[in-house]
């Protein structure tokens, strides 16, 4: 009946963080995260500098690698998981991601649209007038 059910603070690894024995497993988690982050970072720099890849696809590949690395940081360093004690943290994060997506994608779409419907420069207008 008296099950301890508290929400978990962001950054906490588990309910056992105050337990002294949690240190070794915590070290393992941070080390796995560090290794994954190093691999993803190295992959990003390789993708950006190599001449082997199809150039127009590089920005998309970089974006995928960056999002993957952010996920690694969130899970392994900030310890945001999908556990039932973590719902509040995940919901706040989801709201933040929503706002960030709206701001960045919205700005890019609107500005590209405005640029597209700008009047062409003067010399182009002249050419259109001539013909």
């Amino acid at each position, binding site marked *: 009946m008296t*099950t301890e059910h508290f929400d978990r603070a962001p950054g906490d690894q588990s309910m056992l963080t105050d337990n002294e024995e949690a240190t070794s497993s915590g070290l393992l988690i941070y080390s796995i995260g560090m290794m994954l982050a190093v691999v993803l970072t190295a992959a*990003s720099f390789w993708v950006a*500098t190599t001449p082997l890849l199809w150039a127009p696809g590089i920005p998309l590949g970089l974006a995928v690698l960056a999002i993957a690395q952010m996920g690694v940081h969130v899970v392994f360093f900030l310890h945001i998981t999908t556990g039932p004690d973590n719902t509040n943290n995940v919901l706040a994060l989801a709201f933040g991601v929503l706002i960030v997506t709206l701001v960045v994608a919205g700005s890019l779409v609107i500005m590209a649209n405005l640029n597209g419907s700008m009047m062409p420069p003067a010399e182009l207008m002249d050419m259109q007038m001539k013909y």
Partner: protein
Amino acid sequence: MNVTVAIDAGETPQSASEAGPAPKRIVVAYGFWIFLLSDIVMFSALFAGYAVLRHATAGGPNGAELFNLGRVAIETACLLASSYTCGLMALAVNSRRRLATYVTALLTFALGAAFLALEIREFADMIAHGASPQRSAFLSAFFALVGCHGLHVAAGLIWIVVMMAQVASKGFRPPVLRRLQCFSLFWHALDIIWVGLFTVVYLMGVAA
């Protein structure tokens, strides 16, 4: 019907009204998490501004001519390693080991300071070559975005010095522990922002 009620009461976790208010450390960390997310939303506006103005170089230098990927790789390595040592510091704090806390905090500070020094050198080099913030809209957006991240790192460096002074003078008291918890959240969040930053600004700037 009585049976189901009994099972429900026994197996489902306590509802918020039964459990009472959450412990203070959870409330504090959650509030700080909300602050960090709002900080990230602020950065997203700077990111959007940079992405929109990326090609508005006004005849000045563009990213591919300015950025030195070798230096950015070292900066990234410094910040990533300092995020790792910050995690180790959190572990040392959790097991109340004072010496390990000082050592990992010193490493975190040194790596963060190295990152900041490299970034200041980069800015100084760019300004010396005439690529100052007032040169073009692209450079204004660049300095606003990267400089804002650099300011956050500088604030984090001051914060960790203050925290070590508090650990030295007050010991691992609950308020100090809560502040250390917030500091490690802050430092990891800065690393997440840097991931977006080096990808969007430097790697895409050089590749495109």
